[in-house]
């Protein structure tokens, strides 16, 4: 095989056609060091045991990434995978995932994105594309129905992600569908909080996998395939989708944006809490997108404020009024739908020039760049969101790191000399904007912060570590474990630390798994809020079920927001059976989810990460408790919860290492 740097790039190979089980049965391997491209046939048994998506990827990467591999070196493997239900006629199943060893945490790393790449992977005749080695020069992968080849990307290196996508679509898209995932400047500069960008600014943002792509000098993946996915029973798939869509279409007239804030305040004041039904969230999501929670989450205590040390008192209704869902979505001119989504929680808004269309910031970005830094300026959030989308940088981690820097400045650990003259004070919008611009360019203080809060704190020293809020090195999503201890639990027990999209008590309530798995706990319709802060086996069972279920959802290519509809409304298990012809029970699917989670845990152990050493910043669990605000006086019994959770999963409750009995039960002959 010729190396792309040496001669012609025509190393086309046949990728193969589809099967009738909703998976393509093959993955593509691209060695960036040698330029060699091969396909690997995946046995049916592996799909049956790990599904596709992050499940299959976890198994392959666990075996093939050597222990102690440098995440930014040639031994790391970077994978782009689609789910088993993608392109099967199901709904909410258009997520693509990127996987690898995370340079941010040193653990299993994955990131999940909607956009339009997931069907394009399967349209090339494969379920995943895995990159090994390291190229000497910038390259991109081009793949279509006939095969794949590496092409020179020197002309694209240095371009922002959205411009890169535009150039590649113009170059390849006269009569074919062109779908692109690429890195921006942040990934090229190996920022450990960089992600991978698709469809004009949708990001697989977490785990720092943009830096892995940058280190491999892989600028983009360009997919132009046209293979169709064959399923076992298309008629059944359609019937299930129609029934699911019936729930999604239910959209009664609803309260306005300001009322969501007062609803949040009211819910904060009540001593009891009501079991959350995902239909309520669906209605709000459909109306405003994720920003429906902006003010409500602050009032409830779900959204962190002021680097997690503040509360709703510091960012009350007077300060958050510009992120009121109605106000904040005024620039939106149309809904944005990821592939196969009937809901459309995204928003397309106009840039200040009145012509360019950009993605509306999501809730996570709004809080991270807003309340977490006490930044009240909604326009700056729109600006920074687009800046970071173009750079390919994780808005959550950037917001968390900026808030950390502000607190360091407040405590005198950073001075104007260190910050290139920036006065990093709470709510100083201009300073926040300048700082983020410097982080994108790795310029001055920006270079110190471009690898996240933990590494910056290690360099600053003098106690800065206590202000860096993270789990295992990754900044946390904008959901407070002191409001819902399930978030604190999953931040430390997930093999990808700092993950907010797997489990929480409110997620468990919305998943409503007990309706299809009667052995799981059925929460009371009303319960005392203080009961959330107890650690017991029921809480552990809820947490374990969330982990297992979301591994199934991610293996299927599913969307968390779709899963929020409830297991009796979104037929994930029935879709899987109709698509593959397997006929598994819901219990059997949770065993598959359990197996996937266990393999990820084994991945970490192989890489030298002891699960019990993954720590969550004390502040986030209320140690010491806050003196005021929505989460006043609460402390999360995290260690106890974690032991219960590991015990429930069949892991050693003290170390988190899977027991031999657990491995035998899951048929994991390692």
């Amino acid at each position, binding site marked *: 095989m010729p190396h792309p740097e040496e001669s012609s790039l025509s190393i086309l190979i046949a990728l193969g*056609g589809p099967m009738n089980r909703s998976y393509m049965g093959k993955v593509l391997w691209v060695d960036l060091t040698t330029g060699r491209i091969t396909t690997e046939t995946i046995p049916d048994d592996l799909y049956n045991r790990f599904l596709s998506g992050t499940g299959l990827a976890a198994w392959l990467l666990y075996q093939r990434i050597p222990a102690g591999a440098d995440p930014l070196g040639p031994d790391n493997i970077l994978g782009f995978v689609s789910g088993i239900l993608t392109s099967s006629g199901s709904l909410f199943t258009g997520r693509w995932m990127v996987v690898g060893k995370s340079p941010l945490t040193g653990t299993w790393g994955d990131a999940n994105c909607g956009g339009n790449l997931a069907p394009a992977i399967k349209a090339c005749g494969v379920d995943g594309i895995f990159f090994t080695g390291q190229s000497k020069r910038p390259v991109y992968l081009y793949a*279509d129905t*006939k095969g794949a080849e590496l092409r020179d990307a020197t002309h694209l290196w240095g371009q922002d992600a959205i411009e890169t996508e535009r150039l590649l679509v113009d170059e390849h898209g006269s*009569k074919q569908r062109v779908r692109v995932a690429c890195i921006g400047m942040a990934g090229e500069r190996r920022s450990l909080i960089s992600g991978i960008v698709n469809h004009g600014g949708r990001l697989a943002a977490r785990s720092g996998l943009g830096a892995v792509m940058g280190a491999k000098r892989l600028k983009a993946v360009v997919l132009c395939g046209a293979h169709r996915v064959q399923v076992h029973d298309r008629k059944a798939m359609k019937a299930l989708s*129609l029934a699911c869509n019936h729930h999604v279409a239910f959209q009664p007239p609803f309260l306005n944006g300001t009322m969501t804030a007062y609803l949040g305040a009211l819910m904060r004041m009540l001593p009891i809490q009501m079991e959350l039904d995902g239909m309520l969230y669906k209605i709000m999501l459909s109306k405003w997108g994720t920003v429906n929670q902006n003010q409500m989450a602050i009032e409830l205590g779900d959204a962190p404020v002021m680097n997690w040390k503040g509360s709703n008192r510091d960012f009350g209704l007077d300060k958050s009024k510009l992120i009121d869902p109605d106000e904040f979505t005024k620039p939106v*001119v149309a*809904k944005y739908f990821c592939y196969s989504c009937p809901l459309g929680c995204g928003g397309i808004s*106009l840039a200040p020039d009145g012509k360019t269309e950009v993605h509306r910031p999501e809730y996570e970005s709004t809080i991270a760049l807003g309340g977490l830094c006490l930044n009240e300026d909604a326009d700056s959030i729109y600006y920074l969101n687009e800046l970071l989308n173009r750079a390919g940088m994780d808005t959550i981690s950037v917001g968390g790191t900026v808030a950390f820097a502000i607190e360091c400045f407040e405590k005198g650990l950073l001075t104007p000399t260190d910050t290139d003259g920036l006065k990093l004070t709470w709510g100083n919008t201009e300073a926040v904007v300048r700082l983020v611009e410097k982080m994108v360019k790795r310029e001055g203080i920006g270079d110190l912060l471009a690898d996240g809060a933990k590494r910056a704190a290690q360099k600053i020293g003098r106690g800065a570590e206590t202000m860096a809020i993270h789990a295992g090195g990754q900044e946390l999503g904008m959901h407070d474990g002191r409001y819902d201890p399930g978030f604190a639990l999953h931040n430390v027990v997930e093999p990808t630390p700092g993950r907010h999209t797997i489990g929480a008590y409110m997620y468990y309530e919305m998943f409503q798994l007990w309706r299809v798995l009667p052995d799981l706990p059925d929460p009371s319709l009303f319960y005392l809020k203080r009961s959330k802060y107890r650690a017991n086996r029921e809480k552990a069972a809820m947490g374990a079920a969330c982990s297992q279920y979301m591994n199934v959802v991610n293996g299927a290519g599913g969307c968390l927001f779709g899963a929020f509809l409830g297991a009796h409304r979104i037929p994930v298990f029935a879709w899987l059976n109709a698509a593959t012809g397997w006929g598994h029970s819901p219990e059997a699917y949770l065993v598959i989810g359990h197996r996937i989670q266990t393999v990820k845990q084994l991945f970490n152990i192989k890489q030298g990460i002891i699960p019990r050493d993954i720590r969550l910043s004390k502040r986030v669990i209320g140690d010491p408790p806050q003196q005021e605000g929505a989460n006043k006086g609460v402390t999360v019994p995290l260690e106890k919860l974690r032991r219960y959770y590991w015990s429930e999963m069949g892991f050693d409750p003290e170390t988190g290492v899977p027991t031999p009995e657990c491995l035998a039960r899951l048929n994991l002959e390692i």
Partner: protein
Amino acid sequence: MAYTITHECVGCSVCMRVCPVDAIVGKPKERHRILPEVCIDCGACGRICPYASVKDPENQVCERIRIRSRWPKPVFDYQRCMGCTICVEACPTSCIDLKADRGTRETLRYPILNKARNCIGCAFCMLECPVDAVAMEEPTG
């Protein structure tokens, strides 16, 4: 499964030109061949072949539709459509796009046949639509 070319083929190459994935190989005036691992079963070769020399995966000879502009094309039912973009991604010739409407956050961008000349009448959009919002109809007028 894939389409196949029979010995009736005279090598006119019209199928090669219409195939959206370059799955057909062969020299002019010689019998052509369809690469089964590349073929996506769109049937365009069968609809265009003047010599009835293409068989579908069920081994039936494909019926020619003489005038290409009369090949069935997608028609969208916007009462049913939910904007999920499945049809956009199903189209092998990228001729379906979303109408770039602007309005408010409630505005949906519905699919339209943007490049009708590129449409090969494969019906993938109709087959993939989960809510039956796409029908294939012969163009009128």
